[in-house]
């Protein structure tokens, strides 16, 4: 009688390191070689160790695949490979120009070790409501490109997160890149994260906005918050309402109230539902104040 092995550890995982995207996609195409895509592992390894996710049989490490590690700028967008790390996001001048709030958000994730290991695709695929990069991606109205051996597929980021820890990805697909429309002339972005301490905190509430003021009124405003719903969310109703309004005490109050009314957060180990609801409104108010101040 041999021991019934009930326990798996990291040593039991079969880990493959494909050198090219094509090689990775072929491994993913066949059920016999397919594995969990690993792009840094800063979220997955914690969940495997804690038992929140079952220890996988196989892992395909996609972090070092050259095609997934590029950042390039086009006329009106920045294209970021899935395996670009948080550290690269915060340090890239292209990202800072095109989506400044994304670079700022990346700089607040974990400590340096996590920022060097963790990646954009990894964070997006982990699909935690507290994923700090999601709001900045959402406000760009950009897309994510997935690839399989059959070809590529482009999905709007605003439609990519389907629910709590759920994304629109087929089992054989890999996230390869993000196409994010750049911040237009005269527009400004804001980012704010509330955590239990000044660094290495998991967000209680965080958010980003992108907007513009013209002729004394808001001409464009996009805002997304995280950690207040099963996924990060755009606040379309509030966005629509504020467009065409001037920013003064009364409209700020109204915006704050509308946000607080719109969100339905839960309470958990990091914060309470009541505080999250209230502070969501405060954050959006803060973003609008910053927009007004910057727009002079």
């Amino acid at each position, binding site marked *: 009688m041999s*021991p019934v092995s009930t326990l798996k550890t990291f040593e039991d995982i079969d880990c493959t390191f494909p050198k090219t995207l094509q090689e990775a996609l072929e491994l993913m195409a066949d059920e016999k070689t397919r594995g969990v895509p690993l792009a840094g592992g800063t979220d997955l390894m914690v969940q495997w160790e*804690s038992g929140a996710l079952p220890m996988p049989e196989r892992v395909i490490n996609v972090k070092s695949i050259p095609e997934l590690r590029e950042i390039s700028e086009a006329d009106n967008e920045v294209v970021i490979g899935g395996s670009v790390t948080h550290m690269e996001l915060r340090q890239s001048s292209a990202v800072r120009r095109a989506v400044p709030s994304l670079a700022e958000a990346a700089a607040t994730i974990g400590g340096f070790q996590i920022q060097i290991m963790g990646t954009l695709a990894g964070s997006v695929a982990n699909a935690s409501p507290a994923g700090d990069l999601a709001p900045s991606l959402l406000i760009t109205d950009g897309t994510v490109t997935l690839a399989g051996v059959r070809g590529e597929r482009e999905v709007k980021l605003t439609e990519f997160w389907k629910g709590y820890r759920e994304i629109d990805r087929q089992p054989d697909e890999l996230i390869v890149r993000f196409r994010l429309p750049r911040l237009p002339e005269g527009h400004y972005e804001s980012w704010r994260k*509330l955590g239990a*301490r000044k*660094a290495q905190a998991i967000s209680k509430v965080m958010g980003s906005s992108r907007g513009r003021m013209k002729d004394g009124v808001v001409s464009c405003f996009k805002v997304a918050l995280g950690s207040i719903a099963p996924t990060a969310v755009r606040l379309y109703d509030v966005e629509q309402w504020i467009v065409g309004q001037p920013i003064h005490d009364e409209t700020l109050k109204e915006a704050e*109230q509308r946000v607080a009314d719109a969100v339905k957060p839960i309470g958990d180990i990091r*914060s*309470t539902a*009541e505080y999250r609801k209230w502070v969501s409104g*405060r954050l959006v108010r803060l973003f609008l104040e910053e927009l007004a101040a910057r727009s002079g």
Partner: protein
Amino acid sequence: MSTKAKASKRIPRVGQGVARLDADEKVRGLAEYADDLQVPDAWYGYIVRSPVSHGRLRALTLDPDYDWSRIVVVTPDDIPGENIVDMMGRDMPFIAHDEIQYRGEPIALVAAPTRKQAREAAAHVRADIEELPPLLTLGEMIDRYKRDPSELHELCAQTIRKGDAERALEEAELVVEGEYRAGHQEQLYIEPQGMVAVPEKDGSVFIHGSMQCPYFINPELCVTLDLPPEKIRVKQSAVGGAFGGKEEFPTLLAGYCALLALKAKRPVKIIYDRHQDILYSTKRHPVWSRYRTGLDKDGTIRALCVEYVLDGGAYTTLSPVVMYRGILHAAMGYRCDHVWVDGYVFRTNTFPSGAFRGFGAPQAVWGLESHVDDLAKACGMTPHEFRLRNALREGDVTPTGGVLRHSVGSPAVLTQTVERSGFVEKLSRCSHGRVSDGKWYGIGMSFFAHGAGFTGDGEARFKAKVALDLEPGEDGWPVVLVRASSTEMGQGTFTILPQVAADGLCIDLNRVRNPYPDTKYVPNSGPTVASRTAMVVGSTVYGAAQKMKKQLEEYVTREFTGGQAVQLVDGQFLTADEKVAMTFEEAATHHFQHRGPLRVYDQFRLPDYLQWDQKNFVGDAYPSYSWGCNVAEVEVDPRTLEVNVLKVTGVYDIGKVLNPVLAKGQLEGGLVQALGYAVMEKIEIKDGLFDASRMQTYVIPTTLDIPEFDLDFVEFPYEFAVPGAKGVGEIPMNGLGPAIANAVEQATGVRMRELPITPETLFAAMTRGASGPLLRTGTA
């Protein structure tokens, strides 16, 4: 060999900020922590735990489909001695056999060749448990306490009675009441708990691992293993932080390892990972306190009535002494003729609460110093005026009737902190939650003492013993070895004790070593707790060093100078006319060759005037006190209610400062731990277990959260324990919580009565609208 000594002026070793003597092995990674110990053929131990919080264990069975041939299982039947942990109360079994009192309580132990196999085997032990209703939280406990305390299981209780506080309360012009709470706090030392037990051929057991108190483990294992003391040897490995978390808990781990090792007939090692360590090790006792204070309008305190209630968790363990220290600090620091304090510890069905830096005092000072700000307000006085008016001074009487005869750093710490921090001017700038464009600013203070050494007559009864060995070192040159059971856990014991020894002997510090304590070689200087090491063990080492100095001087006089007296000064024996007779090294080497190594002992003594009545809590509660005052400045962001602690000013009297660099390190580190307790560290009970059971969820301050520190010492040496240190380890933990709460009130207008103070609790307090600005959505 008689040359004239160059400068025979004595170089002091004490009071110098010398570099840590253990720095080298630690920065080079040479220090061996428990998990670094190479133990050939060691198996790994794992603990089978109760899945329920309260119940009756009906049966324990081993899964018949599992291969147990390479697994050792220990149940209560395998315990050679008593199945009782020999701590206070003697109510905790080593392995539960009948009633289960908390989720995670050990119900069996297993060992296997690998960690993985041990964990796996533990999952194949099946327990049949009849569940009983549990009591899980401080909140439920206090609800019952207020309704009817007889609904609770009392682990221990004690009162202090000075004067007639109830009557004085009735006669007072003003009465102020307040309730205060704080939850568990986790020590979160860097190195998790770890221990190894090695069964020796002669039937003895060798325990080696991470611990604060080697001599706690010996007597306990005698009871559990039914072995005589000489059959149990305990040695400390390098320790990566402890903070009280390795005071009593390692005794349990040593027992688990030893029981498994004796049955497996091979070494057994248990190393907790962080998750296990947080779930299944001791925390700071949660507290609820209620103050009722009688005042005259001029600010005189007439009566202090305090209820101080701790959540002890499932068993008594050290709770009585934690509560004693708590009640002795709950009304300490101010003149008052009528003081009644009632202390209780009740059971909840959670992991037993235990030792943590401050040991009941931070919980007490949290309530008292928050309350004192309310008292000042009630009399229309500022926080510093009120404290200065009432603070105890030399010659005053404590709540237990002890007289503060010597070494009283009050009110010096108070006046100096007020001045240094610019408190008076800054107090006038506080925001009080009034609407402004920027952030809300507040400043607050706290004033506190900390009893040095064991509570009551503990030190007088215990009589700490140390030895010094003079023997040839590894380089052939003579070395003096400090032989004490006092441990280094990061705080600096292995530096300050050699400093004191070098000072007492008047030799160079590089001739002194402090090896890791091993009960085979060291006398019992007591546990490394209670801020006692610098005062109690330090002064005893000094006494031993002076004895050794005298013996060597006599030796040289006898053997070399023909009866002409010599004095050992800075490593040289000098005659009366300042001629160098010989060096310390020469004399010691001669001694080795002709007489062998030299060992001297000394024992701690206290002045006879100290009196303590343990039953009635009357007399000198501590031989002496350290004193401190904190001023905290905070900024609260009205947009988010985030509390940012900007600056902490503190002046402390810890007696003679033995090493100012290490002492300041203790202050800063302790204040950061107190900052976490005040505004961050939150851990609650969910389904019977600690909810924030990983570093991901248990949030402690990072370097970015650390405020500006302005810290200083004012020295009132304790003359009965030369060189005069009192204690620095715990006092930094005592006062920062209330100083921050008082500052938050000045900033926001809201009095916070529970720690930690977070944006969530501030929001809840403000929207309840009981006090301060009503903060609704849409206002700023």
